[in-house]
């Protein structure tokens, strides 16, 4: 059957070409989270296990000048740390630049790991305006299921983060026992 195609591999981002070492190892930034059209389309289509979701939601959009400071190119990996946690995401040049000193991660399991749960009695967690650090990393960006396993550990017996991170991937399709 011929379906109209709404899938995409990666969001479209401006080209950057950084070919020298960064001047800083750890960059202090302000973190915002929210939605963009790629994330929204992928999430609501239901493709959350897919590589696509990892790329649209698990991506840290940065000002190219900040990327230069860290020496990262599009689709290289960075580690974002806040007081609430840390997560490995892709780095990509922001379509909305310039916004030096501010990074943007679309909402999703990756962003959740590092946002503040403080509601200040107003029902809404602080999803925007969070102090964070960004650094280059060799660790890989996890698929959604793998990330949920690592962060919440609901159904793994293991406690050690590193072990869980290196477990075999749960893959891009639902895993459940079918009825015989």
């Amino acid at each position, binding site marked *: 059957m011929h379906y109209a195609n709404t899938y995409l591999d990666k969001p479209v981002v401006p080209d950057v070409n950084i070919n020298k070492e960064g001047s800083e190892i750890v960059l202090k930034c302000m973190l915002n989270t929210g939605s963009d059209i790629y994330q929204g389309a992928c999430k609501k289509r239901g493709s959350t296990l897919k590589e696509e979701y990892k790329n649209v939601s698990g991506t840290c959009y940065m000002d190219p000048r900040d990327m230069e400071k860290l020496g990262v190119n599009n689709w290289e990996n960075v580690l974002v740390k806040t*007081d609430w946690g840390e997560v490995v995401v892709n780095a990509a040049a922001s379509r909305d630049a310039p916004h030096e000193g501010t990074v943007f991660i679309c909402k999703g399991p990756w962003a959740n790991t590092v946002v503040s749960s*403080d509601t*200040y*009695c*107003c029902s809404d967690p602080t999803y925007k305006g969070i102090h964070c650090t960004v650094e280059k990393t060799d660790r890989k960006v996890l698929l959604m299921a793998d990330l949920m396993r690592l962060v919440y550990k609901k159904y793994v017996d293991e406690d050690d983060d590193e072990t869980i991170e290196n477990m075999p991937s749960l893959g891009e399709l639902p895993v459940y026992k079918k009825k015989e």
Partner: protein
Amino acid sequence: MKTITFKQKKTSSIALEFDELIPDEIYTWGESDFNKYEVPIGNSRFPLTDYFDIKVEGEAESPDEVKMIINGDLNRVKYIGCKMSGGEILCNSSVDLHVGAEMSGGTIIVDGNAAAHAGREMSGGYLEIKGNTKEFTGASYIGEWRGMTGGEIIVHGNAGKQCGECLSGGKITVLGNCDILAGIHMSKGVMEIQGDVNRWPGGQMKNGTIVINGKLGRLLEGFVFDEVVDNPDIEGKVYDGRFIKYTGDIGLNGKGTLLINADVNRDKLGEYGESDDEYTSIREYRNL
């Protein structure tokens, strides 16, 4: 005089609700009444004695003659002293939400921190918190434009965001620091802050007085510089030192008074631009 002592046996992850255990309700109760009583937890009720040992000494003719002493970890005990009109409650620990909410008389002393909504909409009485408080101390119920109308709240530590929201009477004293938007929508009463204040005190205030003895972060544009006063007298209390007086919030033709200590806020005098070393204490509040 009747003394009721609560000694904790175990804690609960789901909060216990103490709104029925106020002097007005229990001044006639004996130990057997407490043994029969079931305390609301979530959607159910469980025997109070599962959680507390209760000792009753003496007799009381009225709520005013009751002294409740609550010992133990009260971080999951909410509505302590809610709507009470007399008597005394002593909490020897940090307490959960709504301590002293809507109280009209009596005394509550918390020897620890209080969670949000402490002293919400109180109309009389005295609430003292030896530690810190979270958001909406002495504030109003959501939607209500008349908040605390009487009584006094003293916070020895720091107060969270929007302390004294919609204050319409009474007095709030914070001996520590205050987070953003202290005294927002205030229309009457006095707020005294001994420590520093993060951004924007008195947003959209109509009337009343805020005194800040420490350093002020950002001031709103709605406040107009009035004069520099020495040793101002606010409703009978003289504040020693030199204060800068602002009037606001003129966005709504407000006539509120904001007094900030001139000595520690020199940057606000003359060219009062934005202070660069902005005071942030968010971390402190979070770790309450």
